[in-house]
């Protein structure tokens, strides 16, 4: 499902998707280190994305039954839902994915984030 949010190879740079940026490891760290309300929120967001999003486009859940195009349509319906709580949860899911994705050194380099003197993960640099 996370690879539907940010798939690999749809842009030349960054070409990485969320999974290639280390989502699984990040998710494990998030479960260990995030405060309780964020952990619970992410679990609820994942539940909603998997089990509720397909219903919004008239499909039977879970979302994993479907190909990429349908999954994208389901998640877009979640993002644009009239139900505030669903939008909030989807926003939290995107935020969590972004916390992983935007921290990836290759992604940062591809989007023009400058070299930082104290970055232990830096790619290249002056």
């Amino acid at each position, binding site marked *: 499902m996370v690879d539907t949010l940010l798939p690999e190879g749809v*842009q030349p740079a960054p070409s990485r998707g969320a999974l290639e940026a280390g989502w699984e490891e990040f998710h494990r760290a998030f479960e260990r280190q995030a405060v309780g309300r964020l952990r619970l*929120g992410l679990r609820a967001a994942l539940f909603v994305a998997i089990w509720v999003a397909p219903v919004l486009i008239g499909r039977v859940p879970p979302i994993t039954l479907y190909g990429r195009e349908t999954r994208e349509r389901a998640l877009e319906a979640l993002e644009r839902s009239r139900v505030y709580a669903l939008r909030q949860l989807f926003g939290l899911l995107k935020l969590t994915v972004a916390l992983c*994705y935007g921290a990836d050194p290759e992604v940062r380099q591809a989007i023009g984030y400058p070299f930082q003197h*104290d970055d232990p993960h830096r790619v290249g640099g002056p």
Partner: protein
Amino acid sequence: MIVDGERQMRPIEESFDYVIVGSGAAGATAARVLSDASSSIAVVEEGPAVNAAQFEDRTFPSLRRLYRDMGAQVARGRALIPVLQGRCLGGSTVVNSAIMWRLPEDVWASWDRDHSLGSALPLRELHRHWDQIEEELSVGSTPREVWGGNNSLMERAGRVMGISAGPMRRAVRDCRGSARCQTGCPFDAKQSMAVTYLPHAERRGATLFTRARVDRLGLKGDRAVAVERWLAEAPAGRRYVRLRLHVPKAVAVAASAIHAPGLLRRSGVRSPHIGAHLQVHPGASLIGVFDQPVDMWVGATQGFESDQHRRDGRFKIESVSLSPEMLIARLPGIGPRWARNITQASHMAMWAVDLRAEAEGRVGGRGDRALIRYGPSPRDMANLRAGLRFTAEMLFAAGAREVLPGIHGLPERITRPGDAGLIGSGPDDPRAYAFAISHMFGTARMARRGEAGVVGPDFAVHGVDNLFVVDSSVFPTNTGVNPQLSIMGLAMHAANGIRDRKA
């Protein structure tokens, strides 16, 4: 001396002339003043001490280490609005953009007119304090060398539109424009309390207790006599370490407008005004996409502003740079659409509306979690929409090819300047907007009489002789400008009074 509460295994009982609860702008300023008069001072901070070498260029670990609830503290109303606060030695001054505004004279005049506080807070004296603070914190206008693209574009917008806009005044020394204020300045260029007033107090003998949460204050009759318990957090879970700090002279509460009310309640202070009258500055932002690179990660995090409509529209426009993670999270779309937006990140500028909202909320709760009830009023929403429309017009004036509103119910992108009006006529519902709050006021407000507020003109809690609240909780209203310097000026005024009190 820094005492790490997490490492304390046995009960401690000590005595200090003064105990200050909280180490942010207000607490550190009080410590700076009082430490010149006495070496017997304790500053108690809930968060850890973190130095520049420990700041990380990644958002997740920074949220974990430096922010309260990892940034997940929220105000509940119709919408859930994040309430951002630093939680480390130096408080929010470690993670803010060091923007320095003196309390506007029109706001001071309203405090005098509506709350009769002019003689309690003499403007001339406040200006004297601000002069001193500005000198000590190297406050100055953001130099052109560190404007970078995001700030420079706002300068262009100001010029094109002929509006009041200029570089922000900030507390920095040799800023390198790394745009990393919000995760802690890795160069100690930002003159946060952690590198200025707290070390000053420490050199004069103050003890800084970190990772130590004040549970309650001990009151005896009409006096505060002790800080009775702390809660220290250990990695393997929570544990209590009982500590008792005797306080023969005074306790100054500087735990923020969000957390001072709970502390006062837990300590047995009674007033219907504790936690009431919460006022804030809700903020919401727009992204402009430009043909040329903007590189918002080069330049001061927040270096330019427009106060054109501060008085008539109750909003101010500020440039703001987000970390890659937070910017990506803010971009619309999923799948290829989100990915395409991400590729444009280096061509984006972000500007925010900081709203002087009229609505009042409430901070409840007695435990260690504040329950914040807040929602903007319909008039606030109208002002917000006007502010966002004005921001969109500024972005187009600066040359943006499109604006990403990030507002539910509006198009994902607006490509024609003439369509900026769509934002002005956007939804009334606050749930359509992505707000954030970082300036909070009024939950222990100052009033001449106890029936109208929590503290008197001398900052002492009504009915308790030596218990003072010295942070923005005492402000009778919000200010409409970034509050750090106002908070510090009032805290300095309060601390001078505490120091000069007769025993």
